[in-house]
């Protein structure tokens, strides 16, 4: 027993963090799905799930229960072992990737020397789950979806990688924690210094997570459900979990690299210190809305539930506000950066995912050749130019003594010019292509 305690002691905090990630992430993904359905409903002028719990608040739990109880069908000719193991690969890869991320200054499983590469590389292994699942189902739809997914991920991984390189040049380190510290030293987030890189990463990360408008691997109008056509019940839920975990992972990478991680907006300027109240205020607004909606619920249980939700958010507001008072701050100096850091990190991740949803409900799906052309002839050249531009800006700043603003302004304008030229050339080529009759 003593030996066990000695063994566990140095890894206690990482262990707790890992358990929290594994335990909470499925719940969070469930609620991300609910949010997505609600936002979709809102954008399409309808209500969305309203029945299970007030405003559909218990819908994710009901869905999970339903999927658990559903019959688990394995196709007759399927490669059973691979079919069984494929969703697990996807989920494991996604969750493992979370381990190197710094969610707030105190919440990180491991601060690796190669942190951001670890997140990207392990996250990319989830592809094997998709490809093997598609192959082992022994169905044409699944195989086509898997092939599309592989081709798409390999193409866009390059662009995403080069976009990441741009931000890494600015940070000068690979460790997630130090990247965020570097942004705090610069005083601005890297999205300001490398807006083109952020744009490339947004597009590439949508393609990597197989989301609309790049959801060709699971294009329901062409391939039924792509690689998960033959999956049902809990295995299907695992794929769903993996997809949303991947979204959280790419959103966290973008937050770490471009959006300043756990830093408050304008963290360096004392004039903006009032933003420290924003977390509690937000929670108070949510609590107030819950109380306002409570009497309008049809059943007594639902009224009580709504009041409970309001009270929970009230409590959260209190917890987030506690470190603002000087006495608590003096007693627990780590509380404020920990809590508020996590709040800002998670809200940035949430905004990024909201952007994903917004794009999903706005754009029609791309055709596969359009997708490939966009990746190879626009995003990859542009991402290389972006890296060169940032390197040039750093040379101008460090060796020629230019200020930050002219150096990065000049290179951003140059990169945008190249982007315009590339887009125009691509459009011209497409027109010629259409004139020639489409034979490649």
């Amino acid at each position: 027993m003593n030996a066990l305690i000695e063994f566990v002691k140095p890894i206690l905090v990482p262990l707790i963090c890992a358990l929290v990630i594994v335990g909470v992430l499925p719940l969070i993904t469930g609620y991300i799905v609910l949010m997505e359905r609600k936002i979709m409903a809102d954008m399409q002028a309808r209500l969305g799930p309203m029945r299970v719990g007030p405003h559909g608040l218990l819908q994710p739990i009901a869905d999970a229960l339903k999927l658990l109880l559903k019959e688990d069908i394995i196709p007759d000719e399927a490669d059973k072992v691979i079919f069984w193991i494929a969703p697990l690969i996807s989920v494991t890869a996604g969750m493992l990737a979370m381990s190197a991320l710094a969610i707030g200054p105190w919440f990180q499983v491991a601060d690796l020397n190669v942190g951001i590469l670890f997140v990207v590389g392990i996250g990319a292994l989830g592809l094997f789950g998709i490809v093997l699942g598609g192959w082992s189902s022994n169905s044409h739809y699944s195989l086509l979806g898997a092939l599309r997914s592989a081709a798409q991920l390999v193409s866009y991984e390059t662009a995403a990688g080069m976009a990441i390189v741009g931000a890494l040049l600015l940070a000068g380190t690979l460790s997630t924690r130090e990247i965020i510290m570097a942004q705090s030293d610069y005083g601005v987030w890297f999205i300001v210094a490398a807006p083109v890189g952020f744009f490339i990463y947004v597009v590439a990360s949508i393609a990597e997570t197989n989301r609309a408008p790049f959801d060709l691997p699971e294009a329901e109008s062409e391939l039924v459900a792509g690689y998960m056509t033959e999956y049902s019940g809990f295995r299907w839920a695992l794929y769903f979990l993996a997809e949303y975990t991947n979204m959280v992972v790419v959103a966290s990478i973008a937050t770490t690299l471009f959006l300043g991680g756990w830093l408050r907006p304008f963290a360096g300027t004392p004039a903006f210190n009032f933003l420290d109240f924003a977390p509690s205020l937000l929670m108070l607004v949510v609590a107030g809305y819950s109380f306002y909606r409570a009497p309008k619920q049809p059943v007594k249980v639902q009224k009580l539930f709504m009041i409970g939700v309001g009270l929970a958010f009230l409590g959260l507001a209190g917890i987030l506000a506690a470190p603002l008072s000087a006495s608590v701050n003096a007693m627990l100096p780590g509380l404020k950066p920990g809590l508020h850091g996590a709040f800002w990190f998670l809200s940035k991740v949430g905004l990024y995912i909201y952007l994903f949803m917004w794009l999903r409900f706005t754009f029609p799906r791309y055709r596969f050749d359009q997708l490939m052309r966009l990746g190879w002839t626009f995003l990859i050249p542009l991402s290389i130019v972006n890296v060169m531009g940032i390197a040039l800006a750093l040379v101008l700043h460090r060796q020629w003594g230019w200020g930050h603003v002219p150096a990065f302004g000049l290179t951003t304008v140059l990169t945008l010019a190249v982007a315009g030229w590339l887009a125009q050339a691509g459009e011209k080529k497409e027109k010629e292509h259409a004139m020639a009759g489409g034979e490649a």
Partner: protein
Amino acid sequence: MLDQIVFYFFATLAVISAVLVVTRRNVVQSAIFLITALLATAGIFLQLHAEFLFIVQVILYAGGIMVLFVFVIMLINVDVSLHQIQFNRQWWLGLLLALVLGAQLTVAIAVGRSGLPLGEPAPAKMLEPSTQLVGRVLFTEYMLPFEIASILLLVAMIGAVVMAKKKI
């Protein structure tokens, strides 16, 4: 202690999956076990304090090259090859020669290890921080090989495109 557990675990995993790569009938299963072997090797790199190489192995080998393999395997029909004879006619001769080679190398290491300075490894601190050290070595001493490697990749890329294209 932990070091040893990690090493022997990954070593066993690597050897078992390597054997399965060679013996499996189904090419897709071979590819899966190759991925396992490569990831196990990555674990051994981690145990050897080569963090950067660990992630290069995961991203390039497991994430890049093996995706290519799996992609090609799925692109071309494997159902036929399931029912073919898996080993060629001279397999016993090949196996014999390979085992002789293995035995020779084993003897070489077993005999030579007393003569080699294989003693105490250098302190692990000398290999930290891994990324910076590898970068320094690559971009100072091995600058020319590094550039040549990039040209090799370019040539390989053009070669692969030319090979796989139906009409040039």
